[in-house]
């Protein structure tokens, strides 16, 4: 036996090492193109709008007859692209795949036959997901901000809103990621269930009054958005009609609780579940 220490690394140290191992795997995986599209698409769109406005100054849309300024346009992009699409999609596709990808690739064996708790594997991979998505989405938002806001708006004046946006998106990624990590660890066909939750249940429930909307992440996340909800479609108008905004502190507390509880449940599920790899 070698002289190497045989003291089991702490849970946090184990998770940190899995994070280090997994970050690159997530960034340069088969989903890289998809990830690049999600993060780069809005930037390209923003650059396109900026170029269009430079050529045709009247090209900006009008709301209630008034030209929509850069700040308002940025707010619309935040709602329509990031909050309603990019964040849930990243949560579903990456959250449900935290362990499933390793199982499909049959590489989970290498991680589960090491002297670290399986829960630390999940937490490390979750942190890698969070790091990977935050490192992609937040710069994307910053680029969109600097491309769009100067069009009839003030970069300085809207800056506090940008900070709130970045914080809100990071919290959203954390909450959705944890929920779908649990779905992925606990259920079969997690991707289908995740998609139904993110694009069926959440928007559906938010359309109606009542307490069911409290069983969504979006309900709490939308309370942190510093921009007015756009009324771009009938669904959006309906959402606005039944739009309830819980207090920010309450929303933060709920999102933290959702993240921690689902992550703990996911870790527990991974600890107890057997993974039978197909030969």
């Amino acid at each position, binding site marked *: 036996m070698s002289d190497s220490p045989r003291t089991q690394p702490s849970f946090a140290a184990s998770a940190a090492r899995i994070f*280090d191992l997994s*970050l*690159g795997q997530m*960034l*340069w995986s088969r989903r890289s193109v998809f990830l690049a599209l999600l993060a780069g698409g809005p930037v390209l769109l923003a650059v396109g709008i900026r170029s269009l406005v430079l050529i045709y100054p009247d090209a900006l849309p*009008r*709301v*209630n*007859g*008034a030209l*929509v*300024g850069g*700040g*308002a346009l940025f*707010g619309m992009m935040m709602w329509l692209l990031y909050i309603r699409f990019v964040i849930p999609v990243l949560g579903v596709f990456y959250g449900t795949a935290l362990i499933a990808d390793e199982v499909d690739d049959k590489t989970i064996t290498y991680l589960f036959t090491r002297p670290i708790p399986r829960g630390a594997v999940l937490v490390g991979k979750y942190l890698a997901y969070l*790091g990977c998505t935050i*490192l*992609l989405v*937040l*710069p994307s938002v*910053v*680029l969109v*901000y*600097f491309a769009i806001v100067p069009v009839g708006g*003030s*970069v*300085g*004046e809207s*800056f*506090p809103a*940008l*900070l709130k946006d970045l914080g809100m998106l990071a919290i959203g990624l954390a909450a959705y990621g944890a929920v779908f990590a649990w779905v992925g660890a606990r259920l079969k066909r997690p991707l289908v269930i995740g998609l139904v939750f993110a694009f069926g249940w959440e928007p559906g429930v938010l359309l109606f009054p009542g307490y069911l909307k409290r069983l969504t992440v979006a309900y709490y996340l939308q309370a942190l958005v510093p*921009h*007015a909800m756009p*009324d771009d479609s009938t669904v959006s*108008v309906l959402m*606005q*009609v039944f*739009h309830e*905004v819980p*207090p*920010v502190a309450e929303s933060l507390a709920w999102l933290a609780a959702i993240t921690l509880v689902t992550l703990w449940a996911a870790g527990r599920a991974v600890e107890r579940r057997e993974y039978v790899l197909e030969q």
Partner: protein
Amino acid sequence: MTTKTRYFVIASLLVLGVGMGSGLVAYYSSYPMSAFMRRGGPDEFKYVPADVSVLAYADVQDVMHSQLRQKLHDAVPMSENGQREFQDETGINIETDIEHVVAFAEPGSTGGPGGMVLARGTFDVPRIEALMSEHGARVEDYKGVHVIRVGAHNAMADLHRGMAPSDTRPDRVGVPGANDFAVSFIEPRLVAVGNAGLVRAAIDQKNSPNVTSNEEMMKIVRSLEGGNAWAVGRFDAIRKQAHLPANMASQIPPITWFSISSHVNGGIRGTVRAETRDSEAANNLRDVVGGFVALAKLQAGSNPELQGMMHSLDVSVAGNTVELTFAIPAEAFNALGALGTTKKPAQKPVGPVGH
């Protein structure tokens, strides 16, 4: 972590860092005086005419989140029904939805609302329009922007009846129904509320000179450092509007400009400034104000909270400017609250009467 991943992380953090740095520089260079106001004033100044007599600003979010507000809220638990009802009707949560407010009054405004309030925040436009329509308001289209008119007059009716407009100021002659009250969402997240003529003028403002070209007023606005609520006014214009009897008007000190700036947080800290015609008038004013301050200190009696507030009052004069500074601690509001409650007649408890 592989080298490629490390490069990616560095590049990503670089974009974030440069973005945050640029944003911060833009933020602070746009708000040199304090965190709430840009060099040329808030963006809403572009809707404020150059010749306003009073201009005011309040950072509603800052005030709502102040410790004082929390203390008052805790000390005097107010019924939230009214606020809730207002929110249910309009969709506006006063605590969270309104960011800041700019208000102004124009010289010569007579009858009806003579000014306008511009509020920046989050509004449910269709809901508010529908609500106002239910209450008899009319939604008109003015240069492609909806203007919700409230009042006896409305533009179309005026035109149809061929009536002379009620506003007789030279620049408002020919503007039908200019004195009516109107509401218009002139920008996304910006509502203008006030005199219909002023609201229309705000929609027209694009190329007209605005208050930022009024150097005299902007100089005073820029001097109001650190306040989250302030007001600046031309005292002579207000005096003219008041139509005071000559003998009373002659007793009023010859003040040209005044300003009030306050910072609300744990308590209220503020400054009231008045610019007089000359230094002699300034000294006279200082003596008058000083007398009132001395009287107030006497009246404060033995109440330690009020005494603390009174001792913070300080009057000074520099050239033709008289300045009164004050600091009202949160405890003073408790004392004021207590004074208020002791003056109320005691209510009999309601309950069954025993035999």
